[in-house]
């Protein structure tokens, strides 16, 4: 009987040791995420220039994925305007039951149904860059576009003071996209009291933005154009550059395509509000990882924006942002 007790005690102690070692040291180590399936990331556009917005964002995604040791799979339509295609892709991704979906919604309303479907299958969704009209997503990682719009608006407000023409036109990239809606609202808020003539939509088509601008140049009241994204800004700037009217028209754009920055250097574009796509991609995956680790995540993470002018564009701290370094170059 006594011997049985001894055996029992030794086994018990061994068990305690076992638990102690695995728990104590396990606790000391940062938790590791191990997923069977990759996290699915559905972006708005997968085909673009190297180091454009989505490419840089993908670099940020890769960095965070590497850091957390998780697999990610990026998909999406070729072009941002292919909303139906994005819906199809998202639905296909949902059917695969991934551990989590990160979505950059190309439409504020039309992707809601799919997001609800994902929620129904208990797949958590994080929205990136552009939100959907739903409170299902556990987190939204984006530029605070209202704030970015305000930045552009107040810069325009500052620049237009010296201009004889006070009218301001807004060239937006697309209707019913959260980014466009928020930026426009921010611009209008900052220009409160200013003379906003109206908003034109280029439907993420540079050529259309170009043609819109040519028409706007005929309007003698318009002294400033706010272009709400890269495509719009490039179309606007090309029209101004080609017509040689950079001294008559103040352009404030968004984003930082290389050509856009050349326009900025040349003075065609006076200022551009630049987002941080790298940080956006990085933080989206980081948030996803933290969520899957069971940590609390913020419902909205602002990745910030910077107003870039000719004066600060070659400052060291913005160079990586404006001219993302391409290691494969």
């Amino acid at each position, binding site marked *: 009987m006594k011997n049985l007790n*001894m055996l029992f005690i030794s086994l018990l*102690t*061994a068990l305690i040791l*076992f638990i102690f070692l695995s728990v104590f040291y396990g606790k000391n*180590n940062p938790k590791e995420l191990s997923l069977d399936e990759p996290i699915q990331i559905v972006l708005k556009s997968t085909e673009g220039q190297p180091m454009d917005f989505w490419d840089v964002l993908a670099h940020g995604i890769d960095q965070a994925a590497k850091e957390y040791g998780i697999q990610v799979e990026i998909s999406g339509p070729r072009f941002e305007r292919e909303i139906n295609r994005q819906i199809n892709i998202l639905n296909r991704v949902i059917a695969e039951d991934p551990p989590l979906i990160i979505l950059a919604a190309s439409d504020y309303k039309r992707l809601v149904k799919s997001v609800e479907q994902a929620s129904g299958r208990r797949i958590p969704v994080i929205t990136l860059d552009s939100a959907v009209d739903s409170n299902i997503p556990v987190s939204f990682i984006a530029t605070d576009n209202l704030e970015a719009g305000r930045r552009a608006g107040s810069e325009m407000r500052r620049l237009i003071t010296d201009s004889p023409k006070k009218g301001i036109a807004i060239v937006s990239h697309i209707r019913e996209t959260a980014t466009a809606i928020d930026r426009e609202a921010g611009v209008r808020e900052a220009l409160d009291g200013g003379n906003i003539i109206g908003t034109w939509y280029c439907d993420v088509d540079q050529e259309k933005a170009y043609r819109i601008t040519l028409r706007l140049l005929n309007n003698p009241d318009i002294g400033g154009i706010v272009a709400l994204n890269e495509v719009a800004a490039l179309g606007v700037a090309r029209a101004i550059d080609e017509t040689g009217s950079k001294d008559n028209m103040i352009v404030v754009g968004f984003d930082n395509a290389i050509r856009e920055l050349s326009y900025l250097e040349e003075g065609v574009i006076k200022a551009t509000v630049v987002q941080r796509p*790298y940080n956006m991609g*990085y933080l989206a995956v980081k948030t996803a990882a933290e969520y899957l680790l069971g940590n609390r995540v913020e419902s909205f993470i602002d990745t910030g924006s910077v107003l870039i002018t000719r004066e600060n564009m070659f400052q060291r701290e913005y160079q990586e942002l404006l001219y993302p370094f391409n290691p494969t170059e």
Partner: protein
Amino acid sequence: MIFSAIFIMQLVSFRFTLNTARNSIIDNNKVLLSQLVTQIDSYIGNMEKLADAIVENREIQYFLENVGEPNLDLRQSIENRLADYILARGDLSGILIAGTDGKLLTGAPDGKINPWTVIEDQSWYTKALEANGRTVVSTSYVQNIIAGQYSWVVSLSRSIISAEDGRFLGVLLVDLKFNRINELCRSLVVGRRSYDFIIDQDGNYVFHPMQQLVYSEIRTEPVGEILKMLENHNEDPFFDGEHYFTAAASALTGWHIVNVTYRGDITTNWQWVQLSYAAIGLVLFIVVGIFTNKISSGITKPVRKLQDIMKSVDSGEFHLVGRIEGTDEIRELAREYDIMVTRIRELMKENILEQELKRKSDLKALQAQINPHFLYNTLDSIIWMGEMKQHKEVVQMTSALSKLFRISISKGRELISVTEEIAHVQSYLTIQEMRYKDKFRYLIDIDPDIHDCIILKITLQPLVENAIYHGIKEVDHQGFIKISGRRDGDDIVFEVTDNGRGMNEQQLRQLVAGVTAAEDNRNKLTRQGMGVRNVHERISIYFGAQYGLSFKSTAEKGTTITVRLPAMTQETQ
């Protein structure tokens, strides 16, 4: 005890393994870092040599010295040479020479100079002027000197000084593709998440794989601590709780190359190590548990069994251990114990037997004391003598009888002095002599040396009685009884000799057998035989088997009974 020892050992060795692994990874990082520094330095060193060659080139010097002259052919020749340099070295982004008169020579003949770039404001230009002929290595930045081209570079720049008169001729700029350094930094890292970054002397980033995160302060590096660590030539890496920072300084560039290793990476496989440690611990515990169990059951179990058996002694039961599993010592102990118990058992048995015998002998002594035949015969004699008015004889016999009984009672003592025993037998003989008038004579011849020795009471009287009734009474001639006593070494020996009928050999054997045989298988003896045997038994019980009676007898000649006793006085008893 053993368990806690194992436990502590496990913890210590786990810690030790952890530290060893960590240190080896950190040492490894140091080696990689120094390799990286060597590579960067040799790379930059090569570029400096190139810069030397350009700066000292006669053609170039000549071209720059002649301010204001276009020298188009020479320009073409120089630009071709610079283009050749760039072509020959894949890691050169561009070469530019800025003359004092605004002349710009580039190695990219078809590239247009960016009209928006003001050369004199560029940091590489101003720093080269300050450095006064020494080479300046810039941090990484976007070079915008060629229109439409924005390339990440690290620049080497230096003033061009005339070999002839020491005049300032312009500034040479050699742009190195940053990609080369980037590749170097990214290639020489181990660990899943480890990375290298480079800061210059002032703590500005030259290279960081996550530059954007750093600049937007999503990630911060403890640059201050790293610089301090380098300043103090600290060998140990800086640890911020999550990352280990190891740094090495590049002498040529003034850069500090820092390796960042995640604590988690060092311990990535620790789950497995932990698990195996825990498993080893578990196995050790079980093994030790079983072994201790075995050992303890090998030692404690027999000991406990021994203990239990020994306890039975308390309750008066003397159990034997018998065969027992255990170590040699335990078996030896059990064996010795068994021997002891067996001996005790024997002794106890003997003791019980002896006690019983003693009790019987006491009874027999009592029987001897009060011999009713003798008593009433004697009393008859007294009555008869009284009737015959022989008053003197009556008194004599009565007093002898009284003496006889007094001594035989002797206050309950078993042992009396020889003197008393003599008195006792004397009284008996007095009575018998009076009863058997002139039938026999007797002589008591006891060595006075042994008068003080002790003797079992009523030893001699039965022998005398035997001599009278079986020896003398049967013969016609007058009998003679001699009682002698003397010392014989450590013993005292009494002899009762008669000249009576004696015994033939068969009778003698019968008597001896009857006297010495065990109680159970002895033939019925006569009362007289019983008296003699009682004496023998009592003596051997009291003093041991070597003491007692021996007989000598010849038919028609008489019998001698010898009594042997240990010589003891009252004091020595």
